[in-house]
């Protein structure tokens, strides 16, 4: 029953070390709340935009009024010329300029096509998306009306409707129904936090034992004699701790910030236990590099962003180069982020994420073996030194 003793040992070490408590308990509990709080406004509304209306006609004013009425854009000024508008962009009082041509109304009345210019500050894609979609939606609506009223001569209201859109269409955003930022950022961030905090916690605990045991990675007492027992004992402790964190993220954080929640507990648990196990084993392998307690922060903290980009959620997986895609299979986060996102946010069952689960299973096995090998080597060295 050495495993339970090692398990208890790890528990005692962790709860006596404020540094490790910070990483494996406070960080996984507090960071999700912090990040959810950052992104809860979900959407950008009323992006400030200025107008240069050279046409000054009824139709151009209608266009401007309608753009102003969209939720994404707010017209904050009417400039006389482009120079004035450009100055507004420079001062960041507006992020886009809508330019309406002098012959806007004339062209429309004569049946010619007219062009509305949209000039956008590209500091953020979100501003561009707001301005562009507002203008294009308004132009589509006005085009329909102009088409029907000026050229089609409908006899009834229903006919007008049919002429405006002979084939009607409808867009439904699935799973993230408000196209919000939090619903897309937070679920993967939760899983990333778990992996990184495990790396940090295990790394710091490794640094601690190396500092306390004169460079050895394990305490020199009689429980620590079998590397499989050491690896399993340590892993069991973190697994038990993180199941609590996992349920906290899956239930409390999701509920608190109204994130989409379609997953079933059973699917979540079936996914989460292997995921954390794989993270634990990889953490033990990586902690081989950690010689001093605080080194773990230097190495693991900055990794989270590159790892996040590799998993193919914010940067679409189809656009990730092959080489990086295969490299990303080395980390549990690649599979974990995708699987969790689909289980909790899209109601996927465990068989829907079978590719990810296979990846995690292979990782668990491989990293378990490597961790055992490392500990065997270290054990031999320690025993050799002792005798």
């Amino acid at each position, binding site marked *: 029953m050495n495993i339970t003793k090692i398990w208890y040992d790890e528990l005692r070490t962790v709860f006596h070390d404020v540094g490790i408590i910070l990483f494996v308990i406070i960080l996984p509990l507090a960071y999700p709340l912090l*990040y959810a709080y950052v*992104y809860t406004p979900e959407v950008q509304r009323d992006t400030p935009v200025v107008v240069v209306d050279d046409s000054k006609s009824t139709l151009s004013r209608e266009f401007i009024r309608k753009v102003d009425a969209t939720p994404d854009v707010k017209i904050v000024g009417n400039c006389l010329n482009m120079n004035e508008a450009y100055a507004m962009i420079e001062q960041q009082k507006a992020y886009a300029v809508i330019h309406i041509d002098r012959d806007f109304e004339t062209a*429309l009345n004569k049946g010619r096509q007219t062009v509305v210019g949209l000039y956008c500050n*590209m500091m953020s894609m979100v501003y561009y998306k707001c301005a562009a979609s507002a203008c294009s939606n308004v132009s589509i609506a006005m085009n329909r009306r102009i088409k029907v009223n000026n050229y089609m001569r409908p006899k009834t209201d229903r006919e007008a409707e049919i002429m405006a859109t*002979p084939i009607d*269409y*409808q867009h439904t955003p699935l799973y*993230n129904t408000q196209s919000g930022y939090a619903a897309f950022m937070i679920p993967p961030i939760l899983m990333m936090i778990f992996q990184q905090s495990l790396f940090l916690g295990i790394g710091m605990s490794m640094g601690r034992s190396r500092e306390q045991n004169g460079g050895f990675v394990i305490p020199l007492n009689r429980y620590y004699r079998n590397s499989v027992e050491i690896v399993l004992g340590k892993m069991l402790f973190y697994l038990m701790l993180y199941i609590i964190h996992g349920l906290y993220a899956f239930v409390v954080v999701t509920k608190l910030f109204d994130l989409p929640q379609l997953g079933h507990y059973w699917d979540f648990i079936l996914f989460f236990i292997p995921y954390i196990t794989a993270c634990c084993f990889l953490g033990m392998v990586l902690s081989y590099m950690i010689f001093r307690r*605080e080194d773990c922060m230097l190495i693991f903290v900055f990794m989270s962003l590159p790892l996040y980009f590799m998993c193919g959620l914010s940067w679409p997986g189809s656009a990730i180069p092959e080489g990086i895609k295969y490299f990303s299979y080395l980390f549990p986060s690649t599979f974990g982020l995708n699987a969790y996102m689909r289980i909790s946010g899209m*109601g996927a069952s465990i068989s829907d994420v079978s590719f990810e689960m296979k990846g995690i299973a292979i990782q668990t096995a491989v990293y378990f073996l490597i961790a055992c090998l490392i500990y065997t080597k270290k054990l031999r060295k320690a025993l050799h030194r002792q005798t």
Partner: protein
Amino acid sequence: MREVIARIFRIGLREIGIFSHRPMYLFVILIAPLLCLIYFTQIMRSGTPDKMPCGVVDEDNTSTTRSIVRILGSMQNTDIKAHYGSFSEARKAMQRGEIYAFFYIPRNTTDKALASRRPQISFYTADTWYAAGSLLMKDLQMTSELAGLAVTRATLSAKGVPTSLMMGILQPISIETHPIANPGLNYSVYLNNIVVPGLFFLIIMLFTAYTIGYEWKMGTQKELFEMAGESSTIALAGKLWPQTLLYCVLMTLIDVYFYKYQGFPLNVSLIRILCAGWLCIFASQALAVFFFGIFLTLRMGMSACSLFGVLQISVCGFTFPLTAMKPVFQYLAWISPLRHYYMLYVNQALNGFKLVYAWPSIVALLLICLLPLTMLFRIAHAFKYVEYKP
């Protein structure tokens, strides 16, 4: 004065000596930022993600609907990956992560369109993949709009309207978008200009706090304080100058790589954006000293730096706008070097605006650089009396 410089120099040499014993240092401050630089520019080398997997459910399956699907397939961002027999099959494929969106054409669409009974087609995007969802949405909306316009076009030509007048009727108002300075909507330009410096500043903050706290950990803080002639300013200046030089060289490398090699838009001279980068390096170091001064322990100093350094990548507002965040983050952003770097980059490199409009950021950065002054006394006290606590 000469003696002060000699002391700073000597402490710097001692620091380089410490560096040479720890290969990990080299990895963290030299290799890691360069790896990140290459990694991020490689992952986004296509600029804009195009040809993203999309599904089609064509229950009608007539020549008309097939031509609609062909139009969709020819769009830049869309790659029609699969045809599904029913809505739920397509939804399941979405849950498996095979497609980001799908187009749904119900039975009798062609019939209804020909009989003027206004059929409805629909498209579904999984906005859990935000960028993929919104890029595909644009294509799908365009295709749907074109499907309707094709019917109108047929009606009009049956009524004898000549082709030359057609565009003025079908699309009287057309929007011409001019994304200033990034006309190709290149995501690599948009993201990497901030992500890479953001990670670099994070590493700088962590490493600065680490090297300072390391003296306490090794129990050599008193020795250092003596070398500095009992002045915390000299001790810190001596400790930090070798790193600062290295950071400045690295920042130069990053900028040269971005603007000369990758061809990212640069509308001012390189030296201006370099100055902004260097100023932000100093501010990051200053902030790290400030955090260390507050806690006076290695662990807490580094924790504060990592918390702030990671958070500022979100809070600087280059993906989700700062103006839409809660007010508390808008205040926090004032002490974020990355936020000011972002403002300076947008003002200078991206757009080449007048520098005068960026003065709040420059002043804020200079003020951040002065923050450690408030902590010098505390750190001097710590040199004498505080011992390392794990």
